[in-house]
């Protein structure tokens, strides 16, 4: 969603009004291939694929009363592996409805000096009818190992100054990356470099009538995509910038939150009409929702999600009446529908705007409407969020990618009879670890004989983990559901005989109401191995496969566990009369991560042997979703402890 909400309330460019500025022309319209682009420096000749040079220029120019934006992308890539060829022999350029490609040039420079230029007839075009985006694409002729491919693209873009991000690292290493923003002198910009990218340098004398801002980066490694339990995308070197001020008009602090909040608030209030309110009343009256006061948020959300489908490109609704009739709603329809519903039920709301933290976390230091891509409702009286676009989630859960993140909370205050919007940046906390808690009660009973262990397990999946399973029932046929449940169940029992699994509380209808459960029974003699007069029993397998970070070089990225969660497990082994576990202490483990005196993760396993009963109790938790790099080692130990326990073998011996 490209600034969807910003577009909702802003008529953008009073901001750049260039009153008084002189007409200018883009400085790179004649940009051409680089002479000697085919020369590969000796030091890179053994690389499989490397971007030798990458230049991106964005130029903002005044043309008449308008502001135009031009974009240049120039790349010289050395390709010396099959993988490199596959990554570069198909080129796609996408651009918006009101944008155009001015130059699209491509050539391949072979080792023997042959140069193969793009034939215009090779270019195919495509329009995405949903977004209006256009694509030009072509296959690159003549590419072979040892070749250099050079691309030049000049586009005339829709000016967009609220929040620009430029990622300097990608799937191949980059030897040299030059960025320039060329702008009329009366426009003031704010920049921020992330993850070690050099700061912007301003040049006011490179061009007479324009400022040039540059960033140069050298020898950038490829993006880290291999570390486990990490949020890879947000750790690449990135430049972010936005327009801040227009010195001619004196207007400044563009894209600020207060203006956004007030415009948004006004727009919401102006759009809600009596007809709409009536339609929503009727919609809720028809199938009355009833329940306890504290269930109201769930009941409202559930009623809407059970009846109205979120369809981001649905454009046939002119009013809320249409929404109720067509039973489909786009994001704005949904916003209105929920807003009216909450108002009708006298539930106070705050609108929360934020980002998907796996794409880009909300940066409270960089104020821009570009941080406002996603929306939630916050209900302060209940301390709960409502996720209006996701049909398979119910409060208190919401997409975890939006939590553990900051957000802009917009609420209403009334002063002397007048209402207005107030905007505050606050933390969006994910539901705490007790919500996403899995509990497992595992029993292995050898009463019938040492070679006939009977196993039963009751697993209750809370919060997000249950939410992952519950919708499955509704999306597959009965037989396939049985197969999937069997597969999930087998993870908690290994491949064993007489296996039976009974799922409980599956289906969307149970979301947010009842936790998902699996009841498993089996004969687990497959986990038993005979070793002379003793028996080895793979008890650890019964907790299921666990996440692990066993094999890793020095850790580069902090840990990301998606959401706070916890486990409680009790494993009870009833042995035949006269048997004991010879290695009871093998089940004892205790690891924790402590940050500032606060234990944020722990795996504690406590075994106990009483008569012929061997019992292990587990407490495992991850209090937060993020784990800092400087505590990573201890965090790794906690996580790996559960995976280690999964390998526990106990030795059963007759006294």
């Amino acid at each position, binding site marked *: 969603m490209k600034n969807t909400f910003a577009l909702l309330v802003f008529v953008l460019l009073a901001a750049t009004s260039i009153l008084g500025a002189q007409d200018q022309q883009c400085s790179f319209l004649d940009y051409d291939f680089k002479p000697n682009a085919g020369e590969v420096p000796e030091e890179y000749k053994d690389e499989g694929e490397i971007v030798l040079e990458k230049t991106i220029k964005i130029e903002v120019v005044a043309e008449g009363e308008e502001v135009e934006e031009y974009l240049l992308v120039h790349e010289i890539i050395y390709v010396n592996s099959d993988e490199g060829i596959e990554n570069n022999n198909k080129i796609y350029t996408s651009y918006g409805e009101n944008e155009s490609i001015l130059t699209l040039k491509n050539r391949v420079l072979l080792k023997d000096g042959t140069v193969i230029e793009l034939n215009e007839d090779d270019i195919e075009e495509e329009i995405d009818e949903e977004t209006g985006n256009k694509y030009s694409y072509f296959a690159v*002729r003549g*590419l072979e190992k040892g070749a250099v491919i050079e691309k030049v693209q000049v586009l005339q873009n829709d000016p967009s100054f609220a929040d620009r991000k430029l990622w300097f690292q990608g799937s191949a290493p980059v030897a040299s990356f030059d960025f320039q923003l060329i702008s009329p002198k009366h426009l003031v910009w704010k920049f921020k470099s992330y993850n070690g990218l050099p700061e912007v340098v301003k040049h006011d004398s490179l061009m007479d009538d324009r400022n040039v801002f540059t960033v140069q980066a050298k020898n950038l490694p490829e993006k880290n995509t291999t570390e486990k339990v990490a949020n890879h995308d947000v750790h690449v070197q990135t430049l972010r910038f936005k327009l801040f001020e227009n010195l001619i008009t004196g207007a400044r602090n563009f894209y600020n939150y207060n203006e956004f909040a007030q415009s948004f608030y006004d727009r919401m209030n102006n759009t809600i009409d009596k007809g709409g309110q009536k339609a929503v009343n009727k919609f809720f009256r028809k199938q009355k929702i009833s329940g306890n006061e504290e269930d109201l948020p769930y009941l409202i959300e559930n009623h809407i999600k059970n009846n109205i489908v979120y369809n981001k490109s649905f*454009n046939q609704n002119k009013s809320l009446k249409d929404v109720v009739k067509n039973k*489909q709603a786009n994001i704005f329809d949904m916003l209105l529908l929920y807003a009216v519903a909450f108002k009708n039920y006298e539930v106070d709301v705050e609108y929360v705007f934020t980002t998907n933290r796996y794409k880009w976390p909300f940066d409270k230091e960089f104020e821009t409407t570009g941080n406002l891509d996603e929306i939630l409702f916050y209900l302060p009286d209940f301390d709960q969020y409502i996720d209006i676009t996701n049909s398979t989630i119910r409060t208190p859960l919401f997409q975890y990618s939006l939590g553990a993140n900051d957000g802009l909370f917009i609420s209403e205050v009334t002063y002397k009879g007048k209402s207005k919007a107030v905007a505050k940046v606050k933390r969006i906390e994910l539901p705490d670890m007790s919500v996403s808690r899995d509990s497992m009660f595992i029993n292995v009973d050898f009463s019938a004989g040492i070679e006939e262990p009977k196993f039963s397990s009751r697993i209750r999946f809370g919060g997000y983990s249950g939410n992952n399973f519950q919708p499955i029932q509704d999306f597959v046929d009965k037989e396939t559901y049985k197969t999937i449940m069997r597969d999930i169940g087998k993870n908690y029992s290994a491949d064993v005989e007489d296996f039976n699994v009974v799922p409980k509380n599956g289906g969307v209808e149970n979301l947010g109401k009842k936790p998902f459960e699996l009841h498993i029974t089996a004969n687990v003699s*497959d986990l038993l*191995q005979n070793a002379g007069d003793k028996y080895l029993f793979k008890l650890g397998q019964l907790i299921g496969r666990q996440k692990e970070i066993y094999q890793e070089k020095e850790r580069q990225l902090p840990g990301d566990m998606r959401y706070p969660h916890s486990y409680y497990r009790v494993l009870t082994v009833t042995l035949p009369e006269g048997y004991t576990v010879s290695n009871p202490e093998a089940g004892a483990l205790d690891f924790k991560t402590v940050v500032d005196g606060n234990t944020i993760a722990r795996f504690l396993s406590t075994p106990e042997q009483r008569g012929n009963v061997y019992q292990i109790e587990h407490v495992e938790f991850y209090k937060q979703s993020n784990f800092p790099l400087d505590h990573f080692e201890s965090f790794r130990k906690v996580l790996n402890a559960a995976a280690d326990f999964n390998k526990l073998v106990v030795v059963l011996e007759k006294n």
Partner: protein
Amino acid sequence: MCRITKLLLLFSLVTVGCGQKQSEVFQSMKKKYASSGEIVLVEEDKYTIKNKNGELQIKKESRMETVVMRNFAINRVKDSYRTSDFATVTQHKAYSINAKNKKFKKTLSRESNDNADGIFYDDIRKVEITYPGIGVGSKKVLEYTTVFKDPRLLHPFLFIKDSPAETLRLIVEVDRSVDVEGRVFNDPDNTISYNKEEKGKQVVHTWEAKEVAPFTFERGTPALLHTEPHVALMIKSYDTKTGTVQLLGSVQDLYRYYWGFIKDLNSESDPAIVELVDRITENATTDREKVKALYYWVKDNIKYIAYENGYGGFIPRDAKLVRERKFGDCKDMSSILKEMCHSAGVSNVYLTWIGTSRIPYTYKQLPTPSADNHMIAAYIDKGEIIFLDATDSYSPFGMPSDFIQGKEALIGINENNFKVVTVPIQPSSKNIWQDSITINLEGDKIVGTGNFRLSGYNKVDFVRGLATLNEQKRFAKIKDFTLLGTNKYKLLDFNLKNEFEKDLPLESDYTFELANYLVVLDNELYINPFLKNQSTFEPFDADREKPYFFQNLSTQNHHLTVNIPEGYEIRGVPIPLTLDNKLFYFDASFEQSANAIHLSYQLKIKSNYIYSADFETWNKATQELKQYFKNTLTFTAKN
């Protein structure tokens, strides 16, 4: 892979109206299908084939009615169909009727390209319909008309849906002067009824299935068309004033059609190819060596990028263009390879049509373009046929690509001559995975060294998987492949050899550590010596119905040496085991030497398919295998 693959996917959606009100329809279906989210009330394809003065006019009217049965299915607000230059949808109508009989006529439709199956560019477009007003009890109705330009390219009709279906029906209404045949596949229980009715100048064929259970997913099945019931149509001939025009019906007819696509291929010679061929074959002394060198050159230098626009999906491109582009699809690679071989003076290399393992038919079973989806070249050397598939970059000369084994190849010799031959299934002795490991038990840890060798398809598959990985991902893949015991396995080092030498086995030495595997008691050590996970050899679930498919026959040879730790002695070794049946072979034995225990075992897959009749054999044998794999070695401290 060519466009036919995609055409096969375009099983048309369709149907028939009935006078009942939607509220009543819903109530009656609710009793029958209580737990289903959605049901297909009817899906129908009705072909009308007319012979207008010696010209065929073919259209297909499709209709599909789906009823939303339960709340969660209200999200399924979209349907789609595909249109292309050959089968162009000329009109569509879509609407919904809710449980209170209110009709919603205004739907949204959106067109997009549909370059599926790795095709870079083609003319197939997907049109997606969005229905408003969908609630429980709503019926979605989609109707559209497709006009066919080429009478040889009709769509098959599949008698299976993702949801339960009340009625699935294919109707062909055809002028008597046109000979049409529908062939039924995968319907051993005759669930598809057939009726033929003569109506004046026309004949009406109807295939119909009622109350069809939904498609169920099972692991490892062969492709859909091998197991699911369907009808494939072919127009065999039609009469004109001047006589009968023969279209399809025999392999000869199909070949005549295909010849038309290649007759003008490479009619002009390309001096650059001649020069290139000379360079590539300069060290080759025999024809076979020349073909091999040229085959490897095409594999290594022409990348797979497929343009399948219109007849571009059938007609190979000239070698000159392919050479310049350095990319092409299967036909283009075959074209340049054939041309290069001919240029090198080896004329017995031919273009060859073939179906991949996704296609179930022999040419006799279905002599239409649906019987194949791929092109290769075939080199006939003194009666021996060598299949050359340049789309598979890693297979060695002399081995076909794995996905065409057991399939029929249609080798185009010249205008009037062709050969249909079966590509041999490569024996398991060509596809060997050999692993030799020596381990030491150090404290509570295992440390060891290993060496693996992969030949044949085992190598091809592995190297193909490595091709697009960066360093870290390569490491992870090799770690997974060599993994022993549990995921606590730590790969320390490896040295991969012969990755790009197509004729040599892939080989690597490696070193590793494995913690938390060995069980250590006061004076005893236990270790299960079957360190490799053999998850393929597991019994099937009791309710499995569909066959299991192995793309390749293969052999595993494993050798493990466990050095007896200092101060310990072994307390006996397990007895050997041999299992031999028509599906697989297993043989294991232990030996004891002065300081070590040696385990050797072999596992050999003997059949590509395991059909339900053989499930019992499979289950019994794999059960025994599982028991055997539980054997443990016990080392006791010497007193």
